[in-house]
């Protein structure tokens, strides 16, 4: 069987299925934001934005955008019934005080020790920008990373130790990629699920850190 890596939408779909009912969730820009589209309809999830919103809804219809209802990526969003608005320091007290149950984030690299690198490649040609990444990494109760398993030129993004500047140390709980669902544990990286048709040896070759296959592993349902 030929391995069938997940598309970006399928990564989002797989992660979205795991967001529990009642969770307060912050979604990073890009792939993590897509996950909201795939949370099962019978679950009530409250989305948080750094600029002071709880209860964000989907993008507005064209022509109904409000410049003062935006998400952290500055994109127009909507407010659901039950939404609340608060100032920035409270928004970050929710993050830094551990009140946000889950942050779904993108990453450039993840370490086997749970280190997260998602804000800088260390290239000094570009001015640095960090936004709320370090607050989310350090503060959210749970941190899930959604990303491609490898860079465009085939480099591993899951490493024993990150080589890029860290965003937060030892914070990642779970990694969803186009090839696998991996838990970061005190005993190292445990593969819970693999893309359909993928052999463990191939997954290990594409990963820069030692993996262990869970006894009860299964193929990712997409």
């Amino acid at each position, binding site marked *: 069987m030929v391995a069938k890596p997940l598309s970006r939408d399928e990564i989002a779909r797989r992660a979205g299925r795991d967001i529990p009912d009642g969770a307060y969730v912050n979604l990073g820009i890009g792939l993590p934001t897509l996950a909201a589209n795939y949370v099962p309809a019978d679950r009530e999830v409250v989305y948080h934005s750094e600029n002071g919103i709880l209860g964000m809804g989907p993008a507005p219809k064209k022509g109904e955008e409000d410049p003062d209802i935006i998400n952290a990526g500055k994109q127009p969003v909507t407010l659901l019934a039950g939404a609340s*608005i608060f100032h920035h*320091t409270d928004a970050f007290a929710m993050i830094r005080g551990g009140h946000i149950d889950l942050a779904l984030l993108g990453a450039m690299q993840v370490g086997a020790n749970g280190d997260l690198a998602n804000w800088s490649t260390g290239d000094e040609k570009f001015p*640095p920008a960090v936004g*709320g990444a370090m607050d989310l990494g350090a503060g959210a109760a749970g941190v899930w990373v959604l990303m491609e398993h490898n860079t465009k030129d085939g480099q591993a993004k899951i490493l024993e130790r990150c080589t890029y500047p860290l965003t937060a140390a030892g914070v990642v709980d779970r990694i969803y990629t186009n090839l696998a669902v991996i838990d970061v544990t005190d005993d190292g990286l445990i593969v819970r699920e693999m893309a359909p048709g993928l052999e463990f040896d191939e997954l290990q070759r594409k990963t820069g850190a030692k993996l262990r296959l869970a006894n009860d592993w299964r193929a990712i349902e997409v």
Partner: protein
Amino acid sequence: MIDKRVSSLSAAVAGIRDGSTVLIGGFGASGIPVELIDAVIAQGAKDLTIVTNNAGAGRTDVAKFLASGHVRKIVCSFPRSAGSVVFEELYAAGQIELELVPQGTLSERMRAAGAGIGGFFTPTAAGTKLADGKETRTIDGRQHVFEKPLKGDVALIKAETADRWGNLTFRLAARNFAPTMAMAADLTIVQTRRFVDLGAIAPEQVVTPGIFVDRIVEVPHPVEPGQTS
């Protein structure tokens, strides 16, 4: 009688000194006090440090402030964003100093200044290069970084409604940094879309109490950030 209203933008920004630290509300385009920024540029204070989440886009508001040559340093969490051309040019040319601060730490440092707290320990940035040179302490088994308060000489705020005591409300998520900055500066200057009578804002709906506000000017039709001002 307390009346914090002033009749013009130039009166609102009068007296800002060279070398001041100026806190500027807003996140992306939402909540940026565009008219107050233009007034401070015209007022002419130089060698300023500005504290604001983003470094502007296009050539208006915060970007125009940077391009004016009046700003020596920016304290910011996310200076590089779509359209931040002025900042990127100045940064590449070595003509602006950048202090990069995680967004929550930026906000909390200003809150600390406003609340009279001499700094705080936070796990944010622990183990990263943004903690380089800072005091660290292990609290309950977790490494924390010491962050100092960040005080403004001046804050520039955009509100939706204001009364003569300086009680404020904000429009939707344009609130963002404004309440924290209002309490963190010696001189808090507000542009409001409209003045209302004392008592017109229900007491439990006042978002920023007037004690944190010094001057208010009415700007009934503010330009949206990014538009030509």
